């Protein structure tokens, strides 16, 4: 079936099987930051934003994207908040194998963007809640949580521009 959507801020058309998942289509399109880890919605390696909300693209129908906004990690490459998160994750040695990192970053981005809009600062537990759907078998979550906390502490100074802010 044919779908018209906004993909990473730009209009896009897809032709996909009616039963295809969003993840399958994204990866076929060469957007491979979202990974396949379980295909049951548990690991979060496939996390992307659908209308600005984090979703596990392996359990979302591609057809859901029709008329909607899909944003992947690639689409946030120039977003100042995402770049800060990426820098922080790297600086805090929160990337080991890195297979979970794109999904984690999308989840953290969603959390921190909302916090910035509300003017709040998420605590450790809120960060862990936001990461609850992103399984990481390498890091034990200590360093990713610390990275997010560091960005959260400086949130007010990060400009809201980029794909998702529009």
């Amino acid at each position, binding site marked *: 079936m044919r779908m018209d959507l906004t993909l990473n801020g730009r209009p896009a058309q897809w032709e996909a099987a009616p039963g295809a998942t969003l993840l399958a289509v994204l990866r076929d399109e060469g957007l491979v930051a979202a990974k396949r880890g379980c295909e049951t919605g548990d690991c979060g390696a496939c996390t992307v934003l659908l209308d600005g909300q984090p979703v596990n693209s392996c359990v979302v129908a591609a057809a859901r994207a029709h008329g909607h906004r899909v944003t992947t990690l690639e689409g946030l490459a120039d977003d100042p908040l995402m770049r800060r998160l990426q820098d922080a994750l790297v600086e805090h040695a929160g990337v080991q194998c890195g297979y979970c*990192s794109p999904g984690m970053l999308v989840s953290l981005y969603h959390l921190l963007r909302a916090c910035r809009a509300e003017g709040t600062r998420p605590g450790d537990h809120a960060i862990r809640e936001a990461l609850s759907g992103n399984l990481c078998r390498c890091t034990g979550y200590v360093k990713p949580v610390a990275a997010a906390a560091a960005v959260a502490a400086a949130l007010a100074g990060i400009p809201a521009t980029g794909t998702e802010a529009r």
Partner: protein
Amino acid sequence: MTHDRQQDAPRTEVGRNVTKIDAFKLARGEPVFTDDIHPPGMLWAKVLGSPHAHARVLEVDATRALALPGVVDVAWHAQVKAIPHTRAGQSHPEPSPWDTVILPPKVRFIGDRVAVVVAETLEVAERALGLIDVRYEVLPALTDMDEALARTDVLIHEDPDPRGIAEGGRTNVAARIDKQVGDVEAALKSCDHVVERTYWLPRVQASHIEPHVAISWLDEDGRLVVKTSTQVPFHLRRILARILELKEADIRVIKPRVGGGFGDKQEMVMEDLVALMTLRTRRPVRLEFTREEELICARVRHPQRIVMTTGVMNDGTIVANRMRVTADTGAYGSHALTVQGNTGQKVLPMYPCAHIHFQVTCLYTNNPISGAFRGYGAPQGCFALECHIDEVAKVLGHDRLELRRKNHIRLGDTDPLSAKLGEGKEGLVRVIRSTGLEKAIELGCEAIGWGQRQEPTAPHLSRGLGMALAMQGSGIAGVDWGAATVKLNEDGSVNLAVGATDIGQGSDTVLAQICAEELGIRYEDVRVLSSDTDLTPFDVGAYASSTTYVSGGAVQKAARAVREQLAAIAAGRWECTTTDVRFGEGQVSGPGGKAWTMAELASHALYQAKVQPMATASHLSNESPPPFAAQFADVEVDRETGEVFLRRFVSAVDCGTPVHPDLVLGQIEGAVAQAIGYGLFEEVIVDAAGRVRNPNFLDYKIASALDMPEMITILVPTEEPSGPFGAKAAGEVPIDGPAPAIVNAICDAVGVRIYRIPATPERVWRQIKEAGE
């Protein structure tokens, strides 16, 4: 050797938290993993798994499958030459039995390979599986290890001479070990107390988030290329060459970024299948496991039953220790001997005594295949021993910390068991030349507040503290080796090629730091190429905690050789002796204030002296110095529901010199997370018919961010004389202690011992209930 790196010079690269070499591209989600880029014309493979736990495959009819549009080929046992081998990725000659063929005529667990299909799309391949008609002769299934031991009328491997099966074709025993130091039986008689307990360890799965995935194709010269998510590219090439009857030079194994391995990728789980289908179809072929296949068909940690018997004197002196292990290797004997060997060898030396007896019976069953998983047998042994020490202390009425302090291994101690138990053969005596264990215990106790139990947070909760000590190794002594090539470029930058496999742990980064330190340049000037069998020298691969210690040794040697070449060039130009040439901070200096930047020297070497400063070095260690850990848990237990709430966890770890402290901390934190699952909720549940009941992450739970306690992780650096810049290993030792520390804490809180992990709410509840009755 002409000269060492200036010992007095402060280290600038080793010990620095440099930016992990691949971190940014990973954080940007760039296409760096095996499945991120597909070659044109690629076919999709799927494996038809056996529905029976034990059956002969009498007939396979693929007519209907092949008639499905898009199906290109189907292969099963009758079409493929059966060359016995082991899929365990170990050094040649593998200590694991050669009990496997690519496609077996007899299937031995539910999910075992019956046929493989390749098609133009994944959907077609999946559909084709249902169209392959198979006739089986169903055989009795043995899923209980005691039954497998008792019965000889049903043999899981009855082949007349598969190499290396302990009792090939006569029993279901895959491996046996019986090693003794002193005379335990006699010694027990003279002890004031003999404490015997039995412990049960579950089947758990590595659950790297990237599944096993491999893609193969033929290059323009018709050579086989296999790009795969592996820990052992060179072992893989060797095994593939043998079973596909190709020259090693006609196979290229490429390891791109790997999304975690933890031992599960020290195994040829699927590469032979894609290679086979590429050779048959002459087309690229890709196979990836689903999570369900991971939990059924990849490898699991060996389930074990361990009987610990300890003889002690009233003053707390441990006189004799006996460990009897019964283990389930599942359908094939991958790592059967060596994992079980480690259960004793890596664990019992913690408390040296004159009399040690270690026995293993490892059985074939019709269960999923056990194999390598981080810790490699030690987590099982450590659980039994460290719980047992608490039990011994209880019997004696002694303090459990003091009992450990009185008996644990110390600097200069030898470990007699290691001499008896090598990697499937006689080993080498181990002498402890560095240990931070005492310090680790001290710092860990301080951090957890040992002796001061905190108040429970609710009336129905009880609080307790527990601890465990652990030791591991750094590579396999006398077996593990690796090589590295260091090449200096004309601007002073360096290309480092290593066979060592970075699987996410950061070995490329650590090896680049070692290279830079040895050459006196900056880490940022080193580029690493790792694990491409065409381009990099040999390495056994990423396992047995060997990379920093063994491969790091190779890098250090190669860099030193290049430095010596450079010293000779500089000395020639400066008319001094090579010992007058000093390296450091990107500078090379000689007598009388002569100095060159590395770039100037490199340029001089390449354009004036006209030599390529370059060296390849190999490194084998005849030692395997143990890293040590002291780990502590603070738990609350709900006395009515049996729920365990892990509040704080402390690890104090001696890994020698931490080359990259943050990466070491990450190794420890990640290992603790895995071990929390081992202790509290992870278990691949297999029913009596051999079927996995929970083959997905909905139901096989691994720790999420919400399962983690407050974590305190302390590095206790020591200088290991045999390691590069004093380094030992860090990857495995921290996975050993958490489960026993947690269970010891549960016991401290509610007074009951959990002998079988995971300590699920129901198991804890049952123990409390039984104790109350």
